[in-house]
């Protein structure tokens, strides 16, 4: 026992010594990405896949010589979804030369925002955080790089309009959502669109954590909406599917937010989930050049950053999409101003991403200095029992309505 104790103390001291030993000075300064993720609490349904995707994509890029001759380094750290620890991660990595941060957590990205704006560092907040951050004129250093929930729900309505041959008058749409900011966010857009398009909107709040939805779905049965748009997460989809079955509501009425993956499908049952739809900004499946390349160059050679089964998860594709955009921004920055990349040149690089779809991985994205979201295109996919079948092209509908809401909301922000 004593021996073990001595060994652990020695190991701890060795660890602290290792901390203080600086890495050997390389030829080119690496570009560091600070990945402060919640790997232990609320967001663990997606963070392992997304961070693994980031590491794999960076490993692949480094194999090809990095960006502008400089290697890229990913630093992953857990913040347990606590704003306090997210700030600790930010402050620590900032001093290690990181100026690109990603949190994949709404509470943490909100807590980091004032510091990022103050320090002029870049905050990537794809699919999380405040929606109005797509307004690059106000949030100059924040890059949501992807659709807002406002845009995503508007695209869902556009799809339904397509289904009903261009006329939503008299159609009843139910909105089932987790009753906190994530789920509440699309409501104003839905209410505006209900006025514009003349459909009837029914709201069904689901109390957190979404494990009990019995009363919600009996209400849905009473109202019999023609379509159900769902803003639920992870396990809550599975609960919803059970309640739908119990209440005799067919699965093909259900359109999920992008947060529904292969694990949820497996839990619902691949056969039972037939007809289920989801809005998404990335293509699902592995039939995508970059994923094939990652499998061939990394996983076949035993150099993957995690278990290979994670690659079959759509959140892996989501992570690849996010970091493809980040690396594309870095490429543009290197092209414009060379290396080493600074936060100012990185920002310019990100704002120069044009019609980029990472080889068919995601909706084409064009970032400008006023639109940090990249256009907000998504599409609807349907689960056919084995795979996802796209139902629409990549669309971005009602953009004027969405930007009105964005500008109204972002005008309240003063740095």
């Amino acid at each position: 026992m004593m021996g073990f104790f001595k060994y652990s103390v020695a190991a701890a001291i060795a660890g602290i010594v290792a901390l203080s030993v600086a890495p050997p000075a390389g030829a080119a300064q690496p570009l560091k990405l600070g990945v402060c993720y919640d790997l232990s609490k609320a967001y663990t349904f997606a963070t392992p896949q997304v961070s693994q995707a980031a590491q794999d994509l960076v490993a692949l890029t480094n194999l090809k010589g990095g960006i502008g001759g400089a290697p890229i380094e990913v630093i992953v750290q857990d913040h347990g979804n606590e704003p306090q620890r997210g700030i600790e991660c930010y402050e620590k990595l900032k001093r290690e030369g990181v100026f690109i941060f990603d949190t994949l957590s709404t509470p943490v990205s909100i807590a980091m925002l004032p510091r990022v704006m103050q320090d002029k560092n870049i905050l990537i907040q794809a699919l999380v955080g405040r929606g109005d951050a797509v307004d690059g004129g106000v949030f100059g250093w924040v890059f949501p790089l992807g659709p807002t929930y406002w845009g995503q729900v508007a695209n869902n309505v556009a799809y339904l309009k397509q289904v009903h041959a261009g006329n939503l008058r008299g159609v009843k749409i139910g909105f089932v959502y987790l009753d906190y900011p994530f789920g509440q966010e699309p409501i104003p857009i839905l209410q505006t669109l209900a006025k514009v398009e003349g459909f009837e909107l029914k709201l069904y709040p689901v109390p957190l954590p979404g494990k009990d939805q019995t009363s919600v779905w009996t209400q849905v049965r009473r109202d019999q909406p023609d379509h159900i748009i769902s803003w639920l997460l992870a396990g809550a989809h599975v609960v919803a599917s059970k309640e739908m079955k119990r209440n005799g509501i067919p699965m093909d009425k259900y359109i999920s937010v992008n947060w529904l993956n292969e694990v949820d499908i497996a839990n619902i049952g691949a056969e039972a989930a037939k007809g289920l739809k989801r809005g998404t900004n990335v293509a699902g499946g592995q039939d995508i050049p970059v994923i094939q390349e990652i499998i061939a160059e990394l996983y076949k050679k035993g150099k993957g950053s995690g278990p290979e089964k994670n690659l079959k998860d759509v959140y892996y594709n989501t992570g690849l999409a996010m970091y493809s955009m980040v690396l594309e921004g870095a490429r543009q920055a290197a092209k414009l101003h060379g290396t080493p990349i600074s936060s100012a040149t990185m920002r310019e690089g990100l704002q120069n991403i044009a019609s980029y779809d990472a080889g068919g991985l995601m909706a084409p994205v064009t970032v400008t200095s006023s639109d940090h979201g990249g256009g907000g295109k998504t599409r609807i996919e349907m689960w056919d029992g084995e795979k996802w079948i796209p139902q629409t092209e990549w669309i971005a509908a009602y953009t004027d309505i969405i930007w009105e809401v964005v500008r109204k909301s972002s005008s309240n922000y003063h740095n």
Partner: protein
Amino acid sequence: MFYPLAGVRHQSYVSDSKLFPVPTDRNLLIVLTVAAIAAPFLLSSLYLNSYVQPWLIWTALALGLNLATGWAGQLHLGYAATMAVGAYAAVHAARFGIPWEFALLIGGLAASLIGSLFAFAALRVKGLYLAIVTLAMQFVMDWVLNHSPAISGGSHASLQSPRFALLGQEIASGRGLYYVALGWCALVTVFMMNLQRTALGRALVAVREKDYAAAILGVNSFYYKLIAFSMCSFIGGIGGALLVATFFFLAAPEQFSVNVSIQVLAMIIVGGLGSIIGTYFGVALILLMPGIANEIIANLTSFLGLPLGNETLAHIPTTVYGALIIIFLLVEPLGLGKLYANIRDYFLVWPFDQFKK
């Protein structure tokens, strides 16, 4: 030897109830105060503003909860709700143009008012029932924040706090914000130390030990419980406001959710109910340990070259942290404060206790 007791004799009640009956304690505190004042010049800005400053703010907060739970014996599971009331009231007041000194006071008073209102209902019950009623206060507050954009502020509910200023002097530097936190924490600490030796403090303890026995002695237990709740909420309100004004720079509902309430309660239980020094230790363990454990484990695995996945790497520190709490509470169920007191008791008589054996 370390705690010379020779010549320490008390001949009156006043001298017996001095703040520091043993001079060494006072000297120790002076050294610590000097160290705290010198800290900005000794520590890097990372440690100063990401570790020590939040530690002080949370210690002041935890001391407030310790007043209700540790001294008056009232279990409180809705402390984060009072912090939220204080924070939102103060930030709204400051945004309205009221100077921060008064905004903080408004935050404290608003929290105190709402805390006492709830206490009126909550104090009809005791023990676990009280815990559940205070938990209800937490959920009511969560609901109100999530459903009233007028309070929580627009998109994704985050309300920016104006730049912090005291006496017309804007405080934005890391050192300045640290001193604000230090000043508030010192104020609360001195208040709590003095509370112990007043009639009010003794009444609170009497209520904690047995409320109807206290009533027989002429201590109106309902009144003192109410006092405990309103004081606890006042400290919590100002603490919540300072947390937002000097650390987060914006208020969001997640900063005051139910797990924050549980966390503060964990701080005082691990630290020691009714112990001031213990609260400092408890906050350090609960607040800072996850980050530090993360750092040590990450360095250790990279040093030993262990190929661990991101997830495993994140879960090991959480496990270590949980194990530490269990070990500390197994070694000393009364918390870290008692652990410190044991060591102090040992040195009070050292080395002369050896003669007895």
